[in-house]
Each structure stands twice: as C-alpha cells, then as structure tokens.
C-alpha cells in the first residue's frame, strides 16, 4: 500500500497525491472539503489553493487552514494568472462543467501541468446497463438519476483522448482504476471505471 492510500484518500486522489512533486504549488479546482489539498500540504509540503462552488465546503476548507475561493470552474478560472501554479487539478469535476474543453484549456493555462480525473462512461458496466435496461445507467460511480445528476457532460476515456489529440495536449501520465485498484491501459475504455490523466501543453 502506498503512503497516500494509507491516508484513506479516494483512489483517484491517492494517485494524484503520489504523483505531485514535493514542495510544488497546486490549484485544486472543485476541491470539495479540501481532503486532497490537506494531504498535499501536510504530506508533500505543497503550497495549495483551491476553488469550490459549495459554501459549506469552502467553510470546511477555511476551518482546516486552507486557502479556498468560492467559485465556479466555468467562470472564475479566468482570474488566475498564466502559469501561476505547477499543477492545476480537476478531480471528478470535468463532467459537471458547462464547457469541459474550455475548462481544460484554462487548467493548462494556469498550471504548468494539469491532473484531470473523471468517471469513464464507456466502462463495461455502464454499457451493459444501457444495453440491457435501455435506461441511463445508475452505477456505483454514477449513482444519481439522469434528471438530478450534476454530471451534464458524460465522457469516455476515448472521448477524452480524442479531445487531447485535437487540442495538441501532451499526456505525461495516465492511470486507470477498476474498482479501487489500478488496471492496465489495455482496453481501458472498456475496463476502467475511472481515469486519471497528467497533462501538459506542448514540449
């Protein structure tokens, strides 16, 4: 078990925490209650800042001594200067934004690198659910019915790869999760419930 796993972080966050360089600067977009930021600050000596849309979560972050701004990834990233952090992180939030492509561009403008994690809508369980039931899938990672889910832009691993290619974004690392354990990149679009990408622009 890796050190980050021991902290009880969600698996995708544990992967991100393990792969952020020590003492780097981080912007966590959609930081929730600040669990990842706390792990990065306390475990990796990172200078962290966060953005979160929910006021209660922001309050929880401030109470942990974290610097978090209440804001909306679709609107408020514009106010961060270019290359102002080493890593911009977007975990489980891409599929909830109005314009995921623009948010992705903003992450790579603000961060020298960006971590993006998202649930894979092409996972076999989602596929079979749709195939057999003919209804929008409700699964462990996508537990909310279509009419109230915040996930307004479902995507698959292959969709994401295609967008990266189209925009000339470099993949520096990628990890796939099935259940809470990592699985291979082979047939990830079918086998992975969850994907984590480390991205950079050019070079």
């Amino acid at each position: 078990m890796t050190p980050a796993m021991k902290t009880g972080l969600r698996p995708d966050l544990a992967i991100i925490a393990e792969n952020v360089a020590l003492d780097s600067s981080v912007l966590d977009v959609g930081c929730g209650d600040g669990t990842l930021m706390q792990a990065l600050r306390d475990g990796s000596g990172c200078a962290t800042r966060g953005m979160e849309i929910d006021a209660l979560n922001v309050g929880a972050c401030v109470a942990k001594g974290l610097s978090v701004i209440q804001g909306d990834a679709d609107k408020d990233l514009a106010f961060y200067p270019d290359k102002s952090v080493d890593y911009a992180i977007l975990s489980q939030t891409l599929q909830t934004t109005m314009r995921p492509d623009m948010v992705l561009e903003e992450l790579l403008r603000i961060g020298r690198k960006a971590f993006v994690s998202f649930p894979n809508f092409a996972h076999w369980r989602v596929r079979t659910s749709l195939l057999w039931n003919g209804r929008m899938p409700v699964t462990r990672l996508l537990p909310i019915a279509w009419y109230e889910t915040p996930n307004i832009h479902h995507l698959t691993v292959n969709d994401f790869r295609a967008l990266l290619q189209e925009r000339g974004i470099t993949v520096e690392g990628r990890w796939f999760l099935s259940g809470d354990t990592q699985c291979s990149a082979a047939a990830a679009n079918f086998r992975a419930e969850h994907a984590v990408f480390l991205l950079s622009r050019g070079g």
Partner: protein
Amino acid sequence: MATVLNPPIENRHLDLDMPLLLDGGQMLPCARIAYETCGTLNAAKDNAILICHALTGDQHVVSNHPKTGKPGWWVRMVGPGKPIDTDRFFVICANVIGSCMGSTGPASDGPDGTPWGMRFPVITIRDMVRGHIAVLDSLGIDSLHALVGGSMGGMQVLSLAANFPERTRAVLVLASTARHSAQNIAFHEVGRQAIMADPEWREGDYYAFGKGPEKGLSVARMAAHITYLSEAGLTEKFGRRLQNREEKTFGFDADFQIESYLRYQGLSFTDRFDANSYLYITRAMDYFDLAEEHGGMLANAFAKSKARYCLVSFDTDWLYPTAESRNVVHALNAAGLPVSFVELSAPFGHDSFLLDVPALDRVVQGFIG
C-alpha cells in the same frame, strides 16, 4: 494596569506626541486615539489581533457601551472560547479618528480650546489606519497575528494591509469593499444633506447650544439603516403590519411597524453619535478607493503583502454585494497571495456580519487559527 479579570479588558487612550499627517494635506495636531484591549499580550508580542470597527461602531468590542449600557458590539464573536478567543489572543480595537467615542473628532476641542466643528480636517480611511498604526507602535506590536474588520472596518483592514504590509500576517475582511460605489456615495450624500438641512446644524457649530441637528442625524440614520437590512428581512420582520392600531389613520403618523422601527432607530442613534462625526466618517468612506491609491490596479495595492487573506460576503447584502468582495479576491489572486473567499447565506443583509450566522463563526475561527 488591571490584570485581575480574566481575560482583562482595558479602556485606554494614546495621545500622539507628533501631529498626524493626513491624506488631505492637512495635519491633526495632538490627536488622541481611544482604544480597548482584551486579553493578554504575550512576551513575544505576536498574539495581537486588531479589530477595526464600522461607521457608527466604536472601540467597545467586548465592554458595555458607556452611553447605552448595551453589551460590546461583537461579544458574540470575541471573548474567552469565542471564535476570536481572548484566552489566546490580545484583541485591540481603536476608535477611528473623526469619531466621537474618545478619539479626536469634530466634537473634540481644537487647538483654540473650542470644538473643531467643521474646522476639523477631512480625513480618509488611510488616516484612520495611521491612527491604528500609532497604537500598535505604542504597544510595541510589530506584526499582528490577524487584522479583522467588517464593513468600514473591512476598508481599514484592506488599507492597512496594503499600506503597512509588514504589520500583519493574516487579513480577514467581512462584508466590505475596496471602493465606494456611486450607489454607496449616493446613500451617504442623502444622510449628509439631511444633517446639513437641519437648522440646528448651524454650519457644524452646534456644540455650544446644547442641542444638535438631531432630526437631520436621525433621518440620516434611518436612510442608512435601510441599506443595512435585506428586503426579505424587512418583509419577514415587519411586512405591512400596522403599529399598535387596527386600521390606517389616513395621516402621517407611524402607521406601519417599519416606520415606527426606523424612527426609533434614528432617534436612539442621536443619543450616542455626533452629527459632524457622521459627516466626516461617511466622507472618508466615500473617498475610499484602494485601487486609485495604487495606480488604478487593485492587485498593485497588495504587491508587498505576504499575509494570508480571507474575505466573506453575504448573499443578502446589497450595500457591499458579493461582487465587491470578489473584486478584491481576484486582485489578491493576481498578486499571488493565499486567499480564501466565501459567500455565506444569511437573511440579515449587510448587518449579517454582526448577527447570529454560525457559518461565519466557523470561518472566522478556522481562519484565525
């Protein structure tokens, strides 16, 4: 020095031995700053928190108001075991210059031994801050653990953080703004004109008459008080309910409860506040534009700051709405400073920062540490 109480509360004053140079180009000779402290300053002098008060506030954060006898204005936030914990921190609050609660203002005697009146120089928020810095100097406090203020207190906090960046390590701004908007200025002008239209104002020289422009000051307070509350809050508290009567009187008595309430607020205000102070302090707020002082770029105001920041706005505050706080947050972000911001939901409008909002307590406690 009284140290029997735990934590000790003291009301003190500082007489400046140098004239205070003011933004307006004039200077204030022999100014006095009245201030309250609560708690104990540690040997390293690094546990001090300066609280800046609002327009009609005063230094009595935790002690009873000397004129009204009411508890200090922020006892729900400041005290032993409270979010700003006086068992751990040495809390200071100074009456701003221009006010009337012990610090030098237009009601104080000028150099010729008669009240300053309108001869008192026009002051700015930064001038008030210069007074605070003098108090910190006199106490030997080089760097504050935190600097806290709501409304006009928030303006002083921002001004101090920008102009004296080495003096504080954390900055907490509640329901405030980095500049007064046209609407803010407009409401203040209504108040000032009400005071100056009152014949008892006598061009500000009313002190010898035993009676001031109470009607004008009262109207000014009524207009301002509306801006401190939310429409929803007023509707919930008063609606269209009548005051101690079954029917409308078809006259101009206070038929509605809201009228009666505002009249009471206006009248009781005149018992504790000087009309000329109201003119001077509202003017200082109207002149406040932190970006203007720094080449038009708000981010430049914080170029030398190394503090961490937290801003809080309230969703029902239409006096200094959330957009004003966000404006400051974006500037702090651009300056690369650690900043937190949250818009809290509370029904009380601008006054929310003074009232029972548990979410605010958590943010304040968490940020102060």
